[in-house]
């Protein structure tokens, strides 16, 4: 294998593994910037994964190539609906955010598997037939070397994720809505005194995390696992949560952290195909992403600071 081929393999695999994390961690960023801790990303991803696979299996024959893309939307919508549970519990019913988020994680896998069993009469689904194709960036793909590494045969949802990241960053820091959303995570009482609708903003934050977490789960299911079972989403939501913290609750930071996790994960998976790496015992490659995360966190970040009122209920007096 030549260097360019190796790099393009590494890049494309990194991108595939990063994409679900990017979407989901962005959701976390919005939820927590509005002041609602969301440890339930894992559960949201599970629902997104389940529903997108169901949709894909049901409609692939009639919808063809576009199926997985609509599957993303379906996963997002189901994730959004599922996250309503967290929103109502924390915003209106004064629930502890961590407990409520844990409920999402506890609820989603059995609910999804129950539905799979009730519908298909078996514990896991068939493999989907329509997955995301690979596409070449017009123009950019023809650049020598770089084009081959970055822009040929790329995973299209990844580019969507990167564009969404930039848009969400811009919304969060440059628009009125973003300013108001962040104010609810920083000091909801003060936000209330200047007429910001704290409850409304927090709903938007949580539901955004539902939408994006659902999409993240759908990307994972349709692009990586190919079917749905109890072991489809095992820890990706927590990785996304870690990416959000790692990225300091900033969309760009969360994306970079997700790319790092994706890179580390793909090294551990395709490492045996790579020169230099193929002599390292696989256990080190498997552990590396997690150990490196801890080390980086300790060395360069120290204490990560969440939005000041993240996780605190705001109870409006009437």
């Amino acid at each position: 294998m030549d260097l360019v081929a190796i790099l393009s393999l590494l890049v494309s695999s990194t991108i595939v593994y990063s994409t679900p994390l990017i979407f989901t961690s962005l959701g976390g960023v919005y939820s927590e910037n509005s002041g609602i801790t969301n440890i339930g990303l894992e559960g949201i991803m599970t629902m997104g994964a389940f529903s997108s696979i169901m949709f894909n299996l049901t409609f692939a024959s009639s919808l063809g190539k576009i199926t997985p893309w609509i599957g993303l939307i379906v996963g997002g919508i189901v994730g959004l609906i599922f996250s309503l549970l967290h929103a109502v519990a924390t915003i209106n019913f004064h629930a502890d955010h961590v407990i409520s988020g844990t409920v999402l994680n506890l609820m989603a896998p059995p609910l999804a598997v129950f539905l799979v069993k009730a519908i298909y009469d078996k514990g896991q689904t068939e493999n989907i037939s329509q997955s995301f194709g690979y596409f070449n960036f017009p123009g950019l793909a023809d650049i020598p070397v770089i084009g081959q590494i970055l822009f040929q045969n790329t995973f299209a949802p990844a580019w969507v994720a990167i564009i969404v990241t930039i848009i969400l960053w811009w919304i969060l820091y440059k628009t009125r809505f973003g300013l108001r959303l962040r104010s609810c995570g920083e000091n909801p009482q003060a936000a209330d005194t200047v007429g910001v609708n704290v409850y409304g903003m927090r709903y938007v934050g949580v539901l955004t995390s539902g939408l994006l977490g659902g999409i993240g789960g759908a990307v994972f299911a349709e692009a990586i696992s190919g079917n749905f079972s109890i072991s489809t989403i095992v820890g990706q939501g927590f990785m996304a949560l870690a990416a959000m913290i790692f990225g300091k609750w900033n969309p760009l930071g969360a994306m970079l952290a997700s790319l790092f996790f994706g890179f580390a994960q793909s090294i551990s998976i395709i490492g045996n195909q790579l020169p230099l790496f193929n002599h390292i015992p696989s256990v080190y490659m498997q552990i590396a992403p997690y150990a490196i995360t801890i080390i980086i966190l300790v060395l360069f970040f120290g204490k990560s600071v969440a939005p000041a009122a993240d996780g605190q209920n705001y109870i409006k007096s009437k």
Partner: protein
Amino acid sequence: MENTANVIEMRHIIKEFDGLRANDDINLTLKKGEILALLGENGAGKSTLMSILSGLLTPTSGKVLVRGQQVRIKNPTVAKDLGIGMVHQHFMLMDSFTVLENIILGHETTKGPKLDFRKAFQQIQELSQRYNLNVDPNKKISEITVAQQQRVEILKVLYRGADIMIFDEPTAVLTPQEITEFIQILKELSKEGKAIILITHKLEEIKRVADRVTVIRSGKSVGTFDVAGVTDNRLAELMVGRHVNMRLDKPLATVGKTILQVNNLQVKNNQGIMALKDLSFNLHAGEILGVAGIDGNGQDELVRALTGLQHVNTGHILINGQEMTNRKVREITEAGVSCIPADRQKYGLIMPFSISDNLALQSYYQAPFSNHHVLHHDVINSHANQLIKQFDIRTTSSSVPVSDLSGGNQQKVIIARELSRNSDLIIAFQPTRGLDVGAIEYIHRQLLQERAKGKAILLISYELDEIMQLSDRIIVLHDGNISGEVMPKTTSDEELGLLMTGVKKEGSSVA
């Protein structure tokens, strides 16, 4: 029945919380261009009344008229649209946001979907020049002083085009000079036709700036008076509901041996900036040493260094002649130091814990409260019951969580815990913050009693009145240095104010 020059009329306002009446049939009128003082003790219902006016609370019953029209101010946006703006006592600011972001929040100017930062910047610049409210719009709130934060709050209200402005205890955090400047600002605002309500419990300010004063006491209106026609003493009586002795009896100090020596103390704060620069002073038994100064001039670091919570870079702290620099908190405590922290809920108490547990917080690890790591709850409880009696803590039981107590009783729990330990040195940091007159009097008397017992008391306070009343000597902190030492009998508010802003004693101004 009243003329239309009234911009605000509040009639028969009642506000209940869980059956308790915070406002009980209150009437208030505000005329165009006047400054109305709203006088009352902590907990009298002033803030509740003003929260109703600014749309944060809705009244249980009663009418609100703005410019003669009956209105229902159901949220802050309605208040804003009616031209009502409030500067809260506890600033409503986002520490991690810039000044500009804080000012525009809720009233943003946009260009398309984007916030128009440039236009907002210009508008803010114009306002701050016009009203002489200097502050850098691009600084973060966490980077500016308290006085500047207040300017941000005022700018927030002006930015929204308010012509009815409510100020809740605005001078509590300011120096005498800053208060003078602030009063100037108030007068200019009213000259421009703004109607102003000034919530305060400082009689002197009312005299200086207000046209009329409405007094409320335990939720009820006591009356409204022309400021020119009423005396301080009368107002104080109306506010408290009984005759108040505005002077404390203070016998002469019998000063004993040196308890606390602070030599050339240098301390960096958590941001790594030198917050105390070469501080030296002594404190003797039987003496109250007042430390005056504006918030943020090294008071926090001084207390933290003395109690072992902050690392001392150079210099020495000696207690009873013993070297105590950079010792552990517990070693310092055991060497005879008690501390009443400024923020009682953050530092002084564990809110969900019972009164008993809070009273044992400094001694739980010692006999008779525990042996070999095993707690003796019977001893802890009987100790608590004894202190509850001795310090008159109002509660049904020692097992009640302190979060259920009033602010005054919470403070009594801390006072009881710290004073009962019979320490030689008592550090009292803002010991009466946010308390009503009765509780303040009580705490002052306790401190004087300790002084009579021969304790050394370091009183750090931002309330000049408190420092002047209690201290035997006063040192003034400015920018991490002692800018002067004065005697309460021979100094004046003006002199202290100058020292607090760093103008050195004996003539030549350095400001």
